[in-house]
């Protein structure tokens, strides 16, 4: 009864008691559900509803849990009155974002009570799949659904073909991710595919080349005095967002020196609007600009000699490259940024310590994006902003309770030795951890081998992917597709069986934010309300599937908690007492330690490398020496755009506004009605164009137009903007849904539908910005 004890303690908490008193005054009635009904005694299985007892008094609770409407996973506190969640605020105990949350977290109420949610398992009765085909769902019992899935999982393993099981993982809690990963390993499939291939792989590759850390770069923003942001939409889509929003306020007016922020982007983003200086740049040329900054900093002797001298390697080669090829004048021609501006910003950057250079989507989601990220990251080393207060820092992990080893049989071992469907680690994508957008290719061609079955966990790649329609076609090729999520997304429309999972406000889990804070912090998720309908948490379903598969798969899932709650309890046992975790919702590791240079760098020289030894070793192993030394150095390479400049004169720039809920659905009126604050509009997507460009094309503000790429076209209305590079059309992503949900279906268009399919040459990150388009009257 631990969790109940914790809750009764929580009631004595100051502010909350007052509110509760207030509620008591408002004469509560008998239909109320008390705390034990909401959570269930901890001795029962997780998420199994306890019938409400009529005599339970009405009650207000503040429950500490965490959000997952985007990958930032912030700690929240939810006010629940009589078993209904009515308000979400930040949890002050979380220091990643100092207890603050972004607007998406507030929209959580509409995620929980979304009318488009599914309440019981569904089975497809229409064998025809694809966009526009009605699945003709029939309700199904959990037992039938899990039995059928179990039988198929067993059959595939009996044929010794576990690699033919394909798993998709969208935005899941960290604990769910672990359970899914364990399932893939125990089952014996190398094909666990996350959406990361659409997100930040180039960024990771860039920092890996420099310092050996393959993860998002973390920034210690409390005492940063200067930021130059290459394409990074710090206030819209960077991660972890709530932290960045909080620290922005802090950097501007809560420290003695106001931080100066420069934004480099072809689009006048919200971040640019709030910055001190916007530098429009020719799309895809950020690497050249970063190298030009290096040129100025080195030429004018402004770099941090102590750090560069002691803790970096390859400076001479890098210096030669920067000085020979990236003079401000030469780069000015490439980027369209005036040479004087380049000098001025470079001097400010080097002279205002601590300064950081941040790379983001518009700068690094290109075919040579890894090297752009590398070039940007090198600027941080040049000014000594590595592992210092106010500089780049290195995220510490959480030391969870060890789990028993996975039991592997021969089938599993053989299966995992098969090449992965997404060609990760092959010559095509030598550095790739996951190449999400390669999967449709594999499914459509049946190479390297056909898939027997797929399971999708909260994934919705049909909306996120460049060339989105490929997914519609590819999913048809999967003989049996099981989709697990709380609502019917576009991907779910292709399912043979649809299993409704709980939302994050109804389940047990743990989560931690993407790199940012430096120190480790873990957040709990606990049920705030009873699961809606017959929905069940994802880990519970995986435990069931493993059991039904039997053998070593079932064995691998024995003794690790049996369900979501048990698993979370087990894994966090090494950190803090369960009772305390349930009450506080947050566990924090020790303070961050700076300047750990002796043990920080995971490179051959054990230093920060301007000339990548990691990359050299990888090339040697793969025997690829295509571009010689340049492959090991940060550099700019002219982008090969998709589409002829003659026919398609403009470059399409899709961007992600803040109110895109990253859980795969957008069926939330609170988010939709304020979707584009810079345009003052919601519920729509525009073709945002520079007014001069539009005038040349004879297009007026508000004209309906086709935006056509070499692949497809979509319809939108023109929106004049003085904040768009003349060669660019900007369109917000996140809309254009065609699946369930009154508040999302048929609203706006999805620019990803007309983007061509292309990859970063090293890590297989999807390229979003190199498609050319033409715009004409519809």
């Amino acid at each position: 009864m631990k969790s109940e004890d914790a809750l009764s303690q929580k009631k004595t908490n100051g502010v909350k008691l007052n509110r509760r008193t207030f509620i008591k005054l408002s004469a509560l009635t008998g239909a109320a559900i008390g705390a034990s009904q909401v959570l269930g005694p901890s001795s029962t299985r997780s998420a199994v509803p306890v019938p409400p007892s009529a005599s339970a008094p009405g009650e207000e609770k503040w429950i500490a849990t965490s959000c997952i409407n985007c990958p930032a996973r912030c700690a929240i506190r939810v006010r629940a009155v009589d078993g209904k969640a009515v308000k979400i605020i930040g949890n002050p105990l979380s220091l990643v974002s100092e207890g603050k949350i972004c607007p998406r977290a507030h929209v959580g109420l509409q995620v929980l009570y979304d009318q488009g949610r599914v309440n019981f398992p569904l089975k497809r009765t229409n064998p025809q799949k694809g966009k526009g085909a009605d699945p003709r769902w029939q309700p199904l019992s959990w037992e039938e659904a899990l039995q059928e899935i179990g039988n198929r999982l067993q059959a595939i393993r009996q044929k010794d073909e576990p690699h033919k099981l394909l798993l998709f993982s969208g935005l899941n809690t960290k604990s769910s991710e672990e359970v899914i990963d364990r399932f893939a390993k125990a089952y014996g499939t190398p094909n666990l595919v996350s959406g990361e291939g659409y997100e930040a792989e180039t960024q990771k590759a860039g920092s890996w080349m420099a310092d050996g850390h393959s993860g998002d770069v973390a920034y210690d923003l409390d005492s940063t005095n200067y930021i130059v942001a290459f394409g990074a939409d710090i206030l819209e889509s960077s991660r972890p967002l709530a932290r960045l929003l909080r620290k922005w306020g802090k950097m501007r007016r809560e420290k003695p020196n106001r931080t100066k922020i420069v934004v480099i982007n072809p689009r006048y983003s919200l971040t640019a609007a709030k910055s001190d200086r916007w530098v429009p740049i020719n799309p895809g040329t950020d690497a050249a600009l970063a190298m030009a900054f290096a040129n100025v900093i080195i030429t004018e002797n402004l770099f941090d000699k102590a750090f560069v001298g002691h803790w970096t390697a390859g400076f001479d080669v890098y210096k030669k490259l920067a000085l020979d090829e990236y003079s401000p004048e030469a780069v000015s021609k490439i980027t369209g940024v005036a040479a004087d501006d380049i000098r001025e910003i470079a001097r400010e950057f080097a002279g205002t310590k601590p300064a950081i250079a941040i790379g983001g989507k518009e700068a690094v989601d290109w075919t040579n994006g890894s090297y752009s990220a590398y070039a940007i990251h090198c600027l941080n080393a040049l000014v000594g902003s590595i592992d210092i207060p106010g500089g780049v820092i290195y995220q510490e992990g959480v030391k969870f309770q060890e789990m028993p080893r996975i039991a592997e049989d021969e089938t599993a071992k053989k299966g995992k030795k098969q090449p992965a469907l997404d060609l990760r680690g092959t010559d095509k994508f030598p550095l790739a951890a996951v190449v999400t957008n390669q999967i449709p290719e594999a499914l459509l061609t049946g190479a390297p081998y056909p898939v027997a079955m797929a399971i999708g966990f909260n994934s919705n790649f049909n909306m996120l992917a460049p060339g989105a329609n490929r997914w519609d076609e590819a999913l048809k090729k999967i003989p049996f597709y099981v989709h697990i999520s709380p609502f019917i997304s576009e991907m779910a429309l292709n399912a043979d069986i649809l299993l409704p999972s709980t939302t994050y406000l109804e389940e047990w889990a743990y989560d931690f934010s993407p790199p940012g804070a430096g120190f480790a912090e873990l957040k709990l998720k606990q049920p705030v309300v009873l699961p809606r309908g017959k929905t069940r948490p994802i880990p519970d379903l995986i435990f069931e599937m493993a059991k039904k598969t039997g053998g070593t798969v079932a064995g691998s899932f024995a003794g690790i908690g049996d369900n979501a709650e048990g698993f979370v309890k087990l894994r966090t046992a090494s950190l803090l007492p369960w009772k305390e975790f349930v009450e506080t919702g947050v566990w924090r590791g020790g303070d961050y330690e700076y300047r750990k240079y002796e043990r920080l760098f995971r490179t051959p020289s054990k230093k920060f490398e301007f000339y990548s030894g990691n990359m050299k070793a990888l090339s040697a192993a793969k025997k690829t020496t295509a571009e010689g030394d340049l492959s090991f150095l940060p550099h700019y390479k002219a982008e090969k755009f998709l589409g002829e400049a003659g026919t398609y004169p403009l470059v399409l720039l899709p961007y992600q506004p803040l109110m895109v809920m990253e859980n795969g659905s957008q069926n939330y009126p609170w988010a939709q009605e304020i979707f584009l604050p810079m345009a003052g509009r919601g519920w729509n997507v525009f073709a945002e164009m520079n007014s001069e460009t539009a005038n040349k094309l004879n297009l007026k503000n508000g004209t309906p137009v086709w935006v056509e790429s070499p692949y497809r076209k979509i319809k939108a209305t023109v929106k004049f903007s003085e904040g768009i590079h003349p060669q660019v059309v900007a369109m917000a992503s996140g809309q254009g849904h065609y699946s369930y949900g009154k508040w999302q279906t048929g609203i706006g268009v999805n620019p990803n539908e007309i983007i061509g399919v292309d990859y970063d040459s090293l890590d297989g990150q999807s390229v979003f910005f190199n498609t050319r388009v033409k715009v004409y009257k519809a």
Partner: protein
Amino acid sequence: MPRWGMVIDLDKCVGCQACTVACKAENNVPHGSPREQTERRDFFWNKVIAASSGKYPSVRTELIPMPCMHCDQAPCVTVCPAQATYRREDGIIVQDFRRCIGCKYCIVACPYGARNFNVKEQETTEYQRQDLLPDRKSWGPWPFPTRTHGVVEKCTFCFHRIDQGVKEGKKIGTDVVPACVEVCPSGARVFGDLDDAKSNVSRLLSSRASIRLREEMGTKPKVYYLPK
């Protein structure tokens, strides 16, 4: 008697609109729809607006969070024929739904577009807030649990919070603040007593230059903005 006011630091504001969403959640303000937005019938008690100027590449867009300005010389109060809108002693301008006759005179008079006319029944299924309990009595401390069709509504500075806080002897401005101030992730919003020289709003105002919107109209707004 305090005189409640708000200071919004535009240098800290990140334009995220957390205030807008938190206000809707706190005050049960109905959400709109695509059609209502096209017809400009959707409404907000607080909204972040964008004001742009300049030509490429010297463009400039200001994002301005807009609650009710709670003017000391409020035109809406002057024009209301039914005395449905009035100034409380603590300076908060409130709207009495029971007195409001829905003439919209105040909407025309308000220079800030802070007032909204409610044309829809909250209780229709389409707009029903799924997270609220069917029994209104248990909704908790919302000031107007029952919405009324055909009246004018607006920001209240979350006076339900303030009144409750005062009753409990809490420090308003630190322990108790309106919902938009509470959630602002960048800490751009501050609330407090403008007449108290030691309050955080007064101290902030004395530290930097501030502006009020359309001050020339003599409305004496109690929402101050701190520019960059």
